[in-house]
């Protein structure tokens, strides 16, 4: 057993009706690692994220974080333990400005009694986070309503919401999807910097090229099952992965 595993997924299974969305998937994530999860559409990647973060309850198996059982906890409690996620489709608060979008995580019980919560200047903290992930720090952009932002900014706002919770594990559910090549190029250094600051990152991604550039380890899923887990270089050579992705027999 890996001693510095911050997150352990143990044989989780989830069926929706007769379909096994996730079938006995196990995954160990060590501290400071970037783990990629790839797989064709409908292979159960997002369901796995939902299982880890408590949005979906598993039929069997469990998820542990630093020895503590996450399975059965409500989503907000798991977020309170510092394991946060972004959503595949951005979920901003449309009627609030970008800065006020961050007021919500800063008002959470995890942050409430620290700097940015009731202590210190919250607006500065919010603006710092926004700047860190690529919002212009000027008199205009952070105060625009979330409904006025483009897809690229909304994805960043998703990430900002996670960062405001000062997590130690971030699960990014298709952070790069829907972004242009140049927007992705701007995001990659941000993710790298987060990892260098000691954060553990799980990336669910369709953009394989960019993912392989970042990830230390990649897990491949197909029809709810884990079919491969290795370093990126070996994954690209794996026959079984080619088969799943390209349909080559």
């Amino acid at each position, binding site marked *: 057993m890996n001693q510095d595993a911050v997150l352990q997924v143990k044989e989780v299974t989830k069926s929706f009706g007769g379909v096994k969305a996730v079938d006995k998937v196990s995954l160990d994530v060590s501290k400071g690692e970037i783990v990629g999860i790839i797989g064709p559409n409908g292979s159960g990647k997002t369901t796995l994220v939902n299982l880890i973060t408590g949005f979906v309850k598993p039929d069997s198996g469990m998820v542990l974080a630093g020895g503590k059982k996450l399975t059965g906890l409500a989503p907000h409690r798991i977020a309170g333990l510092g394991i946060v996620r972004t959503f595949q489709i951005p979920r901003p608060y449309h009627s609030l400005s970008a800065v006020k979008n961050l*007021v919500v995580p800063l008002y*959470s019980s995890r942050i409430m009694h620290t700097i940015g919560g009731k202590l210190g200047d919250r607006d500065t903290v919010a603006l710092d986070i926004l700047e860190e992930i690529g919002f212009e720090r000027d008199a205009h952009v952070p105060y625009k309503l979330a409904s006025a932002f483009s897809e690229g900014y909304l994805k960043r706002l998703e990430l900002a919401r996670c960062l405001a919770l000062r997590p130690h594990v971030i699960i990014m559910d298709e952070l790069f999807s829907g972004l242009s090549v140049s927007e992705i190029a701007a995001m990659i250094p941000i993710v790298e910097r987060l990892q260098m600051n000691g954060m553990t990152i799980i990336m669910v991604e369709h953009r394989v090229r960019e993912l392989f550039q970042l990830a230390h380890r990649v897990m491949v899923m197909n029809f709810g099952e884990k079919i491969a887990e290795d370093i990126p270089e070996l994954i690209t050579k794996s026959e079984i992965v080619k088969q799943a992705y390209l349909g080559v027999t």
Partner: protein
Amino acid sequence: MPERRKERLDRGIKVRTEGIYAISSWRGIAYALLPTFSFVVGMLIIPLVAPSMTWQRITTLACIFALLALSFDFLAHFVGIVCLGGAFFTGVGVYISGVLNSAFGLPMVITIPVATIVGAAICTLFLLPCLPIRGIYFAIVSLMYPLLFSRVIQALEIFGGTDGLPGLATFPNIWVELYFIIPMTLILTFGLRRLVNEDFGIVLQAIKDNDQAVKASNINITWYKTKAVFIGSAIGCFAGACLAHLYGWVGLSLFALDFSIFPIAATVVGGVGTLVGPIIGALILAPLSEMLRAFGPLRVVFYSLILAGLVVFKTEGLLPFLQRKYHQFEHWTEV
């Protein structure tokens, strides 16, 4: 023929008095304060200009409806809970203060606060199971409760059964009544407006926009929704408690559907999401309904026509319309 469209521009003084710049001149201060000031003063002088005791009575009833509309608007626009439980709130408030007054002989100064707090707790408890359900389902459940309660009271013959509880304490005179309810309406309106701009209100608005993201932000949304429903039902129960002492009587008719539907009409007419709008809406609709009594059986027809007209031609609501006229001027430009 060239096409024309209406162009709306902010008035210069609006731009000059935004935020802290309002204190740059007396005129700026006056401009920024005038809407609130006229609303408060307007509310306070209604009793003085009301032509007769009947109209003063109608004003107090309008304020009761205004409070219910306020509660509806708060829950619907700032928390995203469509609550048709106006009748439920008033019914619970009315019966608690009625029973406390008639069975235990407690004075009004005790029954009204107790009915507000205990009533809100009871309403919240009953609505708690449906809090995770969003949208129309919550509305239906909250609409059903008043029917349930009134039938239970009828069937079990408790709290006076179908006869109700007569002979409750009433306000000493109409002036006390008016100058208790109107300032309370004002305090609750501005208190709520303050609340929705605080962090607590921002979280509620975030829950309305996207509850999944709030869950993912380490915030227990059910707890926040519970608090919001408590606030909403406390306002409704307070209105109900006042109603018991206005009538000096408590009965099953105070669970009537009017208390659920009228606040929605008032909110739509006044402007959804403005908090002050629903008050203005209720203060227009309640007297209007009385004035139309002259038409006898046709009263409802005219009332419905006016309501439909207001909704069709001023969809945004009266208050947003007035705000726009105050802050902007319009002119036609060629496209």
